[in-house]
């Protein structure tokens, strides 16, 4: 049982691909790592079946994502579009969504209370700060108790203490977690997770997170390259165990381009 993307292309404007020839198979906890704007969120939307301009196949447990309906507890996500744009309180909206997805509202309330306090539950979602919104959306995804929990940038807008606590929360929640991020600080805690790199719409992998820690990045050709990343500019980037700057020294993958240049 897995999530599988086979030769997936996604575009929002003709001939301008956001994802190009993506082949991914996810059956364990997985990190999708890439710089901002590389196509991570689009990849997540493709997995969920939200992307319309697409070719290639997306299969969830062998079933085409476009044909899935009423699959309670199959996938949950922290994407903004899950939250109904409402005048009601966070409590009312989330209670409604979790009732429809057979989720665990008590668990949601527990996470939100521990991370931001109970006041958030009484407020309207649009009144929350970016960090509070992220906590609510993460908690909603985790409390759905789904088989696959898809989290897009779950640490964005959180302060360092809450980031660590959120990582801990994500790790202890059951289900296969798929997490996209551009930061690398948490990788040392996820050594047994699988990892895909997303750069300029192409997806590379899978690797083990533990392997990534040993890799170095170089713009000069390397004979023992584990991965070769082709950029739109025509140049290539090589990941190897021997040559270049250690990837672990970059706190964010956004610095990838700085390293290359």
């Amino acid at each position: 049982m897995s999530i599988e993307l086979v030769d997936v292309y996604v575009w929002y404007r003709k001939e301008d691909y956001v994802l190009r020839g993506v082949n991914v198979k996810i059956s364990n906890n997985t990190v999708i790592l890439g710089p901002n704007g590389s196509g991570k969120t689009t990849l997540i939307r493709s997995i969920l079946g939200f992307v319309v301009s697409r070719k290639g196949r997306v299969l969830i447990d062998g079933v085409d994502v476009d044909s899935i309906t009423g699959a309670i507890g199959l996938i949950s996500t922290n994407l903004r579009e899950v939250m109904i744009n409402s005048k009601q309180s966070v409590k009312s909206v989330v209670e409604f969504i979790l009732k429809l997805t057979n989720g665990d509202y008590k668990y949601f309330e527990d996470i939100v209370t521990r991370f931001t306090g109970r006041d958030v539950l009484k407020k309207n979602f649009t009144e929350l700060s970016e960090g509070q919104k992220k906590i609510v959306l993460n908690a909603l995804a985790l409390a759905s108790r789904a088989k696959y929990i898809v989290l897009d940038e779950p640490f964005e807008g959180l302060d360092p203490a809450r980031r660590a606590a959120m990582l801990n929360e994500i790790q202890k929640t059951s289900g296969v977690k798929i997490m996209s991020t551009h930061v690398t600080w948490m990788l040392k805690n996820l050594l047994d997770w699988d990892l895909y790199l997303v750069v300029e719409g192409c997806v590379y992998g899978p690797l083990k997170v533990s392997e990534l820690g040993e890799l170095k990045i170089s713009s000069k050709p390397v004979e023992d390259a584990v991965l070769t990343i082709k950029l739109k500019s025509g140049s290539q980037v090589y990941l190897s165990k021997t040559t270049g700057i250690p990837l672990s020294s970059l706190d964010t993958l956004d610095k990838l381009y700085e390293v290359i240049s």
Partner: protein
Amino acid sequence: MTTATVWRFYVREIFKRWEFWILAIILNVLWQSTGAYIFSKYAIPLEVRQEISAEVLRRVALLYTGGWYGIVALFMLSFIAIALVHIICNSIVSVRYLSKYSKVSALRLFTGLALAALTAVFIAMFFLLGSTVVFYSHEFYDLKELLTPKNYLGIVAVTVAGGLFTYLLSMTLALLVVVLKKPRMLTPMSFVPIILAFILGYTANYAENIEIQVLPFALIVRLSEHYYSSITIDITKPSVKVFIAEVRGEPLNPTDPLLVWLMLISWITLFTLISILLFKKQKGINIEEILG
């Protein structure tokens, strides 16, 4: 059970828009009091009220009250449409997730929302009916006699049909915003029903053109008037002329209420089909384009 959950959520959502309800109530009171205390003095002058028999006065007062009930009912429905356009449009994106990964299908969700809209219409109707009876009974009888509808069942039926039409019109407008990929058009679009109701509702009172009289706005007003006061429906004449003819006992070309119902049902069917078509079309729009 799922539909009931959706219904409860959206009833709360509709009533959470308190600013819209306050505005609707204020305007309703304004229209009703204008009709009862200002225009009535011109339509049925005080000296005429003293000259005619009590029986004729009651019939004329009821016709006048029924006419105002019809037009204000139309405005009230259009006000509900403002909220509905926003709610439907705001739910479109979430429907994609919920219909795939929860127990609610798109059909159930929009059925629950339609039931919530009808609940709001019912509550508005009771308020509207109550205020109509109080204002006009006060003007004509100092509340010693009440000008109540002649046919309550008919009033309820036309309110449900009007509510359904309002819901489908709101659905069409909300889906148009999505299909045209113009999220910024949402607020202007939500005011289209009230603009149409004002223009076409008032025009139907005075315009001789049959084309205006067969539009859903005019049909809702005509049926409301008819069930409130038992006034004959004659769609070949504007409401005001029908009222004058009824008062003077002049001949009319009665239109069978069943025919008016058939026309209204045809409009409801047409907007149902347009909504289904637009709903299918919006599935081809990327979320980024909807979120703007």
